[in-house]
């Protein structure tokens, strides 16, 4: 379970919430309201005040690398550091079969991994980034606009995969503009007001 206590992001009021295993929290709000900053903070990518607990262990008690092994941020625009996506996949035991399975679940084939990143479409890159984030089986997924560049068919595949991750007991935090997707996936919602009106900006509510 992921527990967030008094997380301070910009001018937002302190955020406190829990996301249980198998639960999906959606973060909604207009652009610039802080959705990405919340997800980055939870992945410990930016220095912020507040406590984050994963199964009772506070972020600072855990080694930073171990924290990010378990709490995995998937950026809206994934970064690449090799010519083809294959070099960016984590090397873990038995990962090959898992990669092929995940790719197939998202409507991709293994050949896509050996095409230059520059000729892949934005949607293909986004889906491969989701695959590489899932290979070493993190326990919390932080998805930033996971379907922004996808067509209806691919969005449905990502939605199925996220549902499967929830069934497997992972916690999922998802920031998205897609109200339909959020409606179908989220158990809880965190609503952020536009950045100009920051008073009582954030509250969680059941769907």
């Amino acid at each position, binding site marked *: 379970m992921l527990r967030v206590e008094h997380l301070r992001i910009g001018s937002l009021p302190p955020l406190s919430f829990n996301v249980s295993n198998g639960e999906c929290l959606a973060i909604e709000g207009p652009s610039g309201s802080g959705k990405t900053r919340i997800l980055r903070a939870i992945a410990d990518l930016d220095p912020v005040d507040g406590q984050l607990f994963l199964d009772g262990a506070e972020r600072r008690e855990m080694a930073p690398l171990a924290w990010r092994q378990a709490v995995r941020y998937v950026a809206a625009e994934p*970064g690449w550091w090799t010519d083809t996506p294959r070099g960016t996949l984590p090397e873990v035991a038995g990962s090959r079969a898992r990669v092929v399975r995940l790719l197939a679940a998202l409507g991709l084939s293994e050949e896509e991994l050996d095409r230059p990143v520059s000729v892949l479409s934005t949607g293909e890159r986004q889906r491969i980034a989701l695959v590489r984030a899932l290979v070493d089986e993190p326990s919390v997924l932080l998805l930033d606009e996971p379907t922004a560049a996808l067509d209806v068919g691919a969005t449905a595949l990502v939605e199925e995969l996220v549902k499967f991750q929830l069934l497997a007991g992972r916690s999922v935090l998802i920031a998205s503009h897609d109200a339909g997707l959020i409606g179908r996936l989220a158990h809880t919602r965190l609503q952020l007001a536009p950045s100009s009106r920051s008073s009582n900006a954030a509250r969680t509510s059941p769907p």
Partner: protein
Amino acid sequence: MTYVPLEIPDLVLAALLLIANGAVSFWFRLGLERSLAISALRMVLQLSVVALALRFIFALNSPLWTIAFALFMAAAAAYEVVSRQERRVSGGLAFALGAGAPFFAGLIATLFATAIVIGPDPWYAPRYVLPLFGMMLGNALSGTSLVLDAMTSAAVRERAAIEARIALGAGRFEAFDAILRRALTTGLMPIVTAMATTGVVALPGMMTGQILAGIDPVSAAKYQVMIMFLIAGSTGVAVVAAGLGSVLLLTDERHRLRLDRLAQK
């Protein structure tokens, strides 16, 4: 064959060539006349002051004064390396890295050269120590400068890639490995090229100086070979220190990329 000393009228004659530059600037309306004059004047002044200072220090032959002058050279070098950066990490640590890497690399190579390789008497003889230190410092300085620049600009340009690796559980040195390797190559390239082309394209300044001073070319070449090895060594040390130090400055103890520490020039 003897050494021909230059007198002031000789220098005035040589300065006439500067008028040609002024004419070019005037003809093409480059507007450089002013900076040309100031630069030339600065050069004459700086060299005169340094020459007088060196004459004084050589006469004293004291280790304290030698160290003081070396520190002054290092401070000037640090100022150069920091002010040349397009973007730089703010704070004293960045300054310490920019100054410290070339200083210690130059110091190690110079002490190695004077105490072990050349062995003048006394080993701290400023006539040997200071020119050697200056050459080591200058080269280590440009290497450091290149590496710091390559590291900071790559960190900004490839932020998405670095953070993707960090988010996937990589440590800071792993996230920076390709960038670090490229930066180190950039920093070492000038000395590699210099060694490959020395003597073919141009005679190095020190060897030219020794030949003009009447030294046998073979002896001058031997000195130059030693200098090149020393420069390569000190540049290598400085470049590696600058590269590893930049990774530490651009990230924090939680292995987060900290571009907020960069200040635009």
